[in-house]
């Protein structure tokens, strides 16, 4: 079991640095299991998916749900403010999150105010035994302020790994690990046993990843040829890169039920989708905002002349071999009654849709397309959500396709993502997911942190495509 020297329940205020796969979640589960007080421990993390994943891990570890309250930091802030809106100085409109872009920052700000002015110190003390914040490297400055202020009242320990901080971008400045996190929450310990790899029988690989982490942190060059046997380097040569990358995508999992994560270019979801469509058995991991679905639904008019075009091109964006132009042409022919060949199942479904123009017939059409020979769904998350949205909408006020799509998106946020056998995504999308094999399609696209996150996704094998064997990712 992880370092017995670190007892989360004994830390009044501190940070535990937790490199990937070193038993951080187990450490939290153990602490919660030992927690015998009536008051629960408040456990906060960043994303709804993170909440779902952590809850599943805690359930598996046999932690009683009575011992903890689990939420995202934003979710907790939102809850506090919905209970005490006046003290936080927030309006009901903002609490409705109708403009998430401005409302979330307003909510964080208000939560800081509520906590800073000590209005609910007594209530927090009565409600929670202590506070644990997971994935602290992803804390933005306002979130760090929320945790810091709560820590005035509750014993608090934060866990995270600065080398996995990849969520910082313009407008979402993260708390600096050394200067801000560790000064407010003094370093209480660092996990250093690569449990995930030890359990997979690849301890040397795990140790090398810890070594890699140190090198990446200090900006030292890495030579992939020095790595243990689990690390495979595929040299790109600039001429047949695509072929080499597609071959890498087909790396076999070590066992029949093993899985492979393929890490593509963060900034280009279309390129990830392309790899998925061209790799047998691969599907995409989608961003939680399901933008393509929401965009489709936003101005979709069942009665517009191009409704069928839109449906078919949507189908083509989530399934392979849809043959959109052919299908549209055939529907035209069939409508004019000048056909020589009888309509296929798909074409009949398309005709029904054109005749009825309803969510129900749209579902049928999408399903029929999926059943067609040679068609493979490579973006199942989007298709599933779309079908679900269509099935639950009735076109009435408040329940249009768009309303329903937004609902499906919000539900999707709260669900843990099931891990497909072979998934294509980016570090941002795959963080927190674990597989047997990780494939990095182009190491040069990744900075030090992203490379570390990518390299630590697989417990049995790491396949890295790059021009040089010596890498020096930007810090």
């Amino acid at each position, binding site marked *: 079991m992880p370092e017995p020297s670190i007892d989360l329940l004994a830390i009044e205020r501190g940070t535990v640095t937790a490199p990937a796969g070193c038993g951080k979640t187990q450490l939290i589960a153990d602490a919660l299991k030992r927690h015998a007080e009536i008051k629960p421990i408040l456990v906060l993390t960043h994303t709804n998916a993170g909440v779902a994943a952590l809850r599943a891990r805690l359930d598996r570890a046999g932690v009683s749900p009575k011992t903890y309250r689990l939420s995202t930091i934003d979710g907790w802030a939102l809850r506090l403010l919905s209970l*005490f809106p006046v*003290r936080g100085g927030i309006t009901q409109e903002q609490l409705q999150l109708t403009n998430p872009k401005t409302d979330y920052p307003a909510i964080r700000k208000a939560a800081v105010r509520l906590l800073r002015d000590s*209005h*609910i*110190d007594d209530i927090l*003390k009565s409600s*929670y035994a202590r506070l644990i914040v997971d994935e602290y490297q992803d804390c933005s400055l306002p979130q760090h302020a929320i945790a810091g202020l709560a820590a005035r009242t509750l014993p608090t320990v934060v866990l995270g790994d600065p080398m996995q901080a990849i969520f910082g971008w313009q407008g979402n400045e993260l708390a600096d690990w050394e200067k801000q996190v560790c000064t407010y929450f003094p370093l209480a310990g660092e996990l250093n046993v690569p449990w995930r790899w030890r359990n997979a029988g690849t301890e040397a690989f795990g140790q090398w990843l810890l070594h890699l982490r140190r090198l990446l942190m200090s900006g030292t060059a890495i030579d992939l040829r020095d790595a243990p046997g689990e690390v495979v380097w595929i040299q790109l040569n600039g001429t047949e890169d695509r072929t080499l990358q597609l071959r890498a995508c087909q790396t076999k999992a070590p066992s029949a039920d093993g899985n492979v994560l393929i890490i593509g270019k963060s900034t280009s979801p279309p390129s990830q989708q392309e790899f998925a469509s061209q790799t047998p058995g691969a599907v995409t991991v989608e961003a939680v905002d399901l933008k393509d679905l929401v965009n489709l639904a936003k101005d979709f008019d069942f009665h517009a002349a191009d409704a069928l075009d839109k449906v078919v091109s949507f189908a083509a964006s989530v399934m392979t071999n849809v043959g959109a132009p052919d299908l549209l042409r055939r529907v035209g022919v069939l409508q004019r009654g000048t056909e020589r060949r009888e309509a296929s199942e798909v074409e009949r479904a398309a005709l029904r849709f054109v005749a009825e123009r309803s969510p129900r017939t749209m579902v049928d059409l999408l399903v029929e397309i999926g059943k067609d020979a040679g068609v493979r769904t490579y973006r199942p998350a989007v298709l599933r959500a779309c079908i679900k949205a269509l099935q639950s909408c009735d076109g009435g006020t408040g329940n249009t396709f768009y309303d329903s799509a937004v609902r499906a998106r919000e539900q999707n946020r709260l669900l843990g993502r099931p891990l497909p056998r072979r998934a294509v995504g980016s570090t941002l999308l795959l963080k927190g997911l674990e597989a047997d094999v990780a494939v990095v399609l182009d190491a040069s696209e990744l900075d030090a942190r992203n490379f570390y996150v990518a390299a630590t996704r697989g417990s049995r094998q790491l396949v890295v495509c790059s021009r040089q064997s010596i890498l020096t990712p930007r810090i």
Partner: protein
Amino acid sequence: MARIRKVEISNFRCIKQLTWLPDSGVNCLIGPGDTGKSTILDAIDLCLGARRSLQLTDADFYRLDVENPISITLTIGDLDDALKNIDSYGLYLRGFDPATGTVEDEPEKDHEVVLTLSLTVEGDLEPEWCLVSDRARTQNSARGLVWSDRVRLSPTRIGALAQANLGWRRGSVLNRLTDEKADATAALTKAARDARAAFGDDADSQLSSTLTMVQDTAKDLGVAVGTRVRAMLDTHSVSFSGGTISLHTDEGVPLEGLGTGSTRLLIAGLQRKAAATASIVLADELEYGLEPHRIMRFLDSLGAKETQPPLQVFMTTHSPVALRELSGDQLLIVREVAGEHQIMRLGSESDVQSAVRLYPEAFLSRTVLVCEGASEIGFVRGIDQWAYANGYGSIAASGVALVDCGGGDADKPYTRALAFQRLGYRVGVLRDDDKKPSAEIERQFKDCGGAVFHWTNARALEDELFLNLPISAVGRLIDYAEQQHGDQQVDSQLRSESSNRVNLASVRHDLEMDALSLETRAFIAKASRKRRAGWFKSITWMEEIAREIVGDALESSSGELRNIVFDAFGWMHNA
């Protein structure tokens, strides 16, 4: 360790409206009967007690008006962690500002975190308990306390029938002392089965003809009852429920057999021990069943004398002993003023505090007559007794208490009277006129509605009597003085106070002649009130002459005596 911070009652029984911020220790409600003291205790009990239903009637509505719902709202502070839990009660947690007594809808720094619990009953008589906050109301969410929290908050009522607390029944204080639980279920179930078996078929033979008739009828009607109907002990009749375990002496006598007082005393003591978990106590008529010395023990065990009160106690009393034992801050007068109930703290100012110690009875009345000295007290009592004997009402029935100022400074009755007046009592002053009070204090008193009764023309009571009573009554007064003090003393006082102008013999002669000059009357009066040798200067003596002699003579007396006495009594009765 919960404490009620604010009580709001409307349309409940005799209370139309009441808002009150009780103290966190002892709150002893006093005041004349029917002002709503017990109603306040009932209100707290109904709102905070762990009940699932209530038996209410139209009579529980203010003036039977069921259109206006009964509403009892209690704001509770000093909450334990479970009650301040954000997940259970977040939407209902509010802030109480102890300085102003205001409840803010959201908690605030330096304000106490409180919950507001309300009981409302509409015309359908269905009670509804729920937590209250503006936030919950705007969100249309309504919930009450979790049952286990209600049980913990539930006040212990030490009523006339406190015996229930001597068994492990629901709500008994015994359950709150520790977490120990006796489980008699298994034993009782076995006993029930044994009893059934032991009784067996005895009933069959005792009830054989009835059984035969049942058997035959069932058979005729084709009702299947088996081959033979049997009479057996009904299982329900031998089932036992909660409360089957109770306290007994070493001889096995149930403690429920203890006297009322002992029971109440014991329960108060146990309640003190259970203060950590159950901190609110309601005690009606705290003196009920208790001798004076045990009243003190009772109050002590409820923590009345402790600086950090262990319990929040709401009680009522009509016992002067209890009043004397409590401080002015623990005593509260309940009054109805212009349709609203008010609760006024006696307070710890020294004049009030000393008045409580000296005249606790007065605080239990509606009307207070402050008398200058013992003579006035005795006089009023005597006349009252005479009036009662002659078919008039007694002032006691009108809720009048007499307060003795013990003579001395002429302003003293007013200082005392003003103290009562400030507390809302109807106050009158009865004084001599020989030493006049300062005009300022008397005007202040009158301006606040005080009534003043005094003798005329700088006279003392004795002057007014001897100058105005008919001769026959004067004669009887002198007879009384002779009996009490001996003829020598009466004679010598007459001589000395008149500079030998009159003596006992000359007065007797004048009385025989029915010719008593005003001058002689004045000498007799002066002699009768000689300092430290007054013939009637004790409550008993004055009471006796007023009852036996003055009362009958009032009608035929001259001057203002009759009017003053009638005015004073009229005022006392016309509360």
